[in-house]
């Protein structure tokens, strides 16, 4: 065991830091959806041009082919530099792209991966349905095979970025009459195809970042199936493992920045003299340190064995609840100023309200606890 970084890794860190110092935009990510999209695309393009997109993606698809350790160093410096959230590029970069790298055909990879990295193609995730949330295997959206086309009918919901996306990771039932995990396929669905309607949904934070998507006889090429027809459950599980695993490293790193900001605020306002607040901040600081240690331990495991340990599900649950504890601390320090919150404000209240997603989206905290008990401790399956 060794907590120190090699000279080459330190050199890489210095390069990240220098570039970010000169290039992080002064402007905050806009609140307006259309402006935010332009902002996200331009920023992703800049990252790509400078070689910071896809640090651990294969070089043949526009990545740098470096290790996950370098990816983490980049994300640490990214958070330190207060660089913007990757926004609409989240799905493509964090789990759509990685799913394609693992499961897609050469032609699919060659077309999509560089576009994702360059910020030219925005992706969204069509897994959840009105009747299939935690119980994802209850998917009812159907794809009927006609010649070399799939004809899609049904609906997806809570689809983040659906209103701005070009492509979708769509999981649907391609075998008539199939049940549960069988007969599903993971397909690349063009969001601009005729028959697709997107109705945005407003969150309690005021933003309209997700939507319900309706499919009315939408025709897409059968070639868009990824990882084989009716093999969708397996491909979807790999998507979720990226979404729940490496996809959250950026959030984890950000939390260590946040706790220092909270401490500074508590010092300035004198709130730190309150014993309860001091106690909670001390605890949060210890927890954030442990989260970083867990992340390092997990990526060390990836470097050593090629895959993350069973602790990934633990990290995911711990980060999501820790993030919410940090948001509640910010709220406590703000006092009754939070009562002035209005839709459109981009502040700690909006963060707090959006933060409820951490224990719901990508598998609820309850489902995560089931997974930990069943896979890590071997307790009997109850679902």
């Amino acid at each position: 065991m060794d907590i120190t970084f090699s000279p080459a890794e330190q050199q890489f860190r210095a390069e990240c830091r220098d570039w970010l110092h000169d290039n992080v935009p002064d402007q905050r990510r806009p609140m307006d959806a259309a402006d935010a999209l332009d902002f996200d695309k331009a920023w992703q393009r800049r990252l790509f041009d400078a070689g910071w997109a896809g640090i651990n993606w294969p070089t043949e698809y526009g990545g740098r082919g470096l290790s996950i350790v370098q990816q983490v160093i980049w994300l640490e410096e990214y958070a330190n530099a207060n660089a913007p959230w990757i926004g609409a590029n989240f799905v493509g970069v964090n789990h759509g792209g990685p799913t394609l790298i693992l499961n897609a055909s050469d032609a699919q990879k060659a077309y999509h991966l560089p576009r994702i990295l360059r910020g030219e193609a925005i992706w969204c995730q069509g897994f959840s349905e009105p009747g299939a949330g935690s119980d994802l295997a209850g998917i009812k959206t159907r794809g009927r095979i006609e010649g070399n086309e799939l004809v899609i009918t049904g609906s997806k919901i809570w689809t983040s970025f659906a209103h701005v996306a070009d492509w979708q990771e769509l999981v649907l039932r391609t075998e008539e009459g199939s049940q549960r995990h069988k007969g599903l396929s993971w397909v690349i669905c063009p969001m601009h195809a005729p028959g697709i309607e997107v109705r945005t949904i407003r969150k309690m934070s005021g933003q309209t970042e997700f939507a319900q998507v309706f499919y009315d006889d939408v025709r897409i090429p059968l070639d868009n199936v990824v990882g084989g027809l009716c093999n969708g459950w397996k491909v979807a599980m790999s998507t979720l493992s990226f979404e729940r695993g490496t996809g959250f490293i950026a959030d984890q790193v950000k939390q260590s920045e946040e706790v220092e900001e909270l401490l500074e605020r508590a010092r300035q306002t004198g709130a730190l003299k309150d014993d309860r607040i001091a106690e909670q901040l001390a605890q949060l600081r210890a927890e954030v340190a442990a989260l970083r240690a867990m992340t390092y331990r997990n990526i060390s495991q990836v470097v050593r064995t090629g895959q993350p340990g069973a602790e990934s599900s633990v990290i995911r649950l711990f980060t999501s609840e820790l993030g919410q504890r940090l948001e509640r601390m910010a709220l406590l320090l703000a006092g009754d100023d939070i009562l002035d919150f209005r839709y459109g404000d981009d502040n700690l209240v909006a963060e707090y309200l959006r933060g409820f997603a951490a224990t719901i989206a990508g598998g609820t905290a309850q489902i995560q606890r089931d997974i930990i008990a069943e896979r890590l401790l071997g307790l009997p399956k109850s679902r």
Partner: protein
Amino acid sequence: MDLTPNDEQVSFISATAKWCADNLPLDGARSRPPALWQQLEAMGWTGMTAPGMDLDHATEALVLAELGRHLAPIALLSTAVTARWAGQPGKTALALLDKDLTGGLVRVFDAPGATHALGLVGGLAAITPLPSDLGGEPGLDLTVPLAHLDPAPPFSPIGGPDAGLHLQLLAAAFAVGCADAARDMAAEYAKLREQFDRPIGWFQALKHICSDSAVRCEVARSQLYYAAGALDAGDPGAAFHIAAAKQLADQAALENARANVQVHGGIGMTDEAAPHLCLKRAHLLSFIAPVRRDILLGEAA
């Protein structure tokens, strides 16, 4: 950067785990054989931290977490610190001093066979010679003989500030082991015990108690590894990282021990069953090198 045990460390851990499984069953922690300390000496665990051995803190923490999982003798902690910083061979008991540090009462744990006791005086490690006949009776922690010295004898410091950190790190390692033991005991029982015609671990209410224990273990263990590495690397943040490890390890040990009693139901709160042994050990560990809040907040002078 690598926060996983290397091959050598893995073999250390598995050798320790195997020996403990054969010789230190947790449910026998109240009646250890009189020659246990000599056996531990023969296995090399009492002298492994001596200056000539060049053992890093990471390996030491890994081995002590295994021993801690079996509620091994508490004097292993004080003996390891004394061996490293005073080069002193033989058993050293563990002393807990009064808060005000002047006079008052000293509690001495695991005194039989020990020539000295080690405690923290104002955060610094310090030792005192012990009367040769100091024995002790079990207190709250039924696995450890406890004796009192009143008034406190004079203590002389050993090592520098790192010796105090070393004790805190090792106590954290013991607490991580204790938390693991409680987690595993609960999970095992939840698979075996049946009510309503199924294992009680089928019920989510219990399942989630167990997964929360697992989360606390992983969190504390990860920070323990980082803290040990920080002490090895001479990292300026070592004091903070060790404090964080101790804080999270103490919480994991205590909360997992309580959860384990709950998962066991009625039998869980009996003298006969093992869960209270972990609970009581967790309470004892929380008083060894306790965490200072100013260090966690990065405000220590």
